[in-house]
């Protein structure tokens, strides 16, 4: 696990959330887990490839997703509309894009895929265990868990 990169992902995500959602965003604790902790109703997944590879999963309750999107859109949303899905995807994309830019400027070239948003309950069953750093981001609308797995290519 590239912990130096993980720190950049956590810092960039927290900073992006503060810019977009508000200054009360906080990262109270981070923990290393044997596999991703992502079981809530809304997930945004971004894959990383290049000189290092991995995956970032944002995981949150439906209520949190709808409220975060409403904040970004400047108007409340009635539920999980296509525009809400797109807002959550873009929030994840902006956070990871910024982190990747910092890493690339330090000399390691990484690319990201466009985010995929999945909604529902218990959607993913992990048949492989990847050591994952889990950073819960506390917002005024609820918690967003950020699961980060990133390794150098050997």
């Amino acid at each position, binding site marked *: 696990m590239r912990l130096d990169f993980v720190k950049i992902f956590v810092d960039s995500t927290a900073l992006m959330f503060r*810019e*977009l959602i508000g200054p009360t965003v906080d990262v109270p604790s981070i923990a290393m887990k044997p596999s991703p902790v992502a079981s809530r109703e809304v997930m945004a997944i971004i894959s990383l490839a290049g000189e290092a590879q991995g995956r970032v999963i944002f995981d949150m309750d439906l209520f949190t997703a709808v409220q975060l*999107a409403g904040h970004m859109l400047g108007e409340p949303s009635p539920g999980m509309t296509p525009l809400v899905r*797109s807002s959550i995807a873009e929030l994840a*994309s*902006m956070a990871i*894009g*910024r982190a990747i*830019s910092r890493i690339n400027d330090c000399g390691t070239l990484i690319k990201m895929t466009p985010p995929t948003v999945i909604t529902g309950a218990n959607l993913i069953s992990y048949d492989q265990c990847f050591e994952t750093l889990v950073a819960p981001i506390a917002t005024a609308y609820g918690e967003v868990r950020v699961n980060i797995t990133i390794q150098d290519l050997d």
Partner: protein
Amino acid sequence: MHLSEEELSMAKAPVTCLIVDDSAFMRFHLKRMMESFENVIASEAANGTEAIREYGRLKPDIVLMDIVMPGLEGVETVKRICNEDPAARVIMISSLSYKEKVAEAISAGAKCFLPKPVTTEELRKAIEKVLSIATESRVGELV
């Protein structure tokens, strides 16, 4: 209704803008920003292929272009648009803002690069800058 030549010259033409982003949220957000400016007409494209087609059809004054898109991504799209129309005025707007990517976008023909998230004020300044560069170069061509 018939307008005299003087009336026609006084009527200020709107600035037309093509917003290219695969994210419905970003298209919604940028369109709202653009329409908050005076006398702007904004249209949208959701990917690079659609952008090239719409650029040819609309010949907009300004293009706002994302980079990470499925299929034809933003830098390659700019390259193709600028090959067809070297006077195209493209502003890249992306969260991928590392030096190499910015240089690649400018080399492809983009006139300006804004990292996401972009504020209304940053967008307004970028548009003014890009429009003034184009005006200066047109004056230069005429001289």
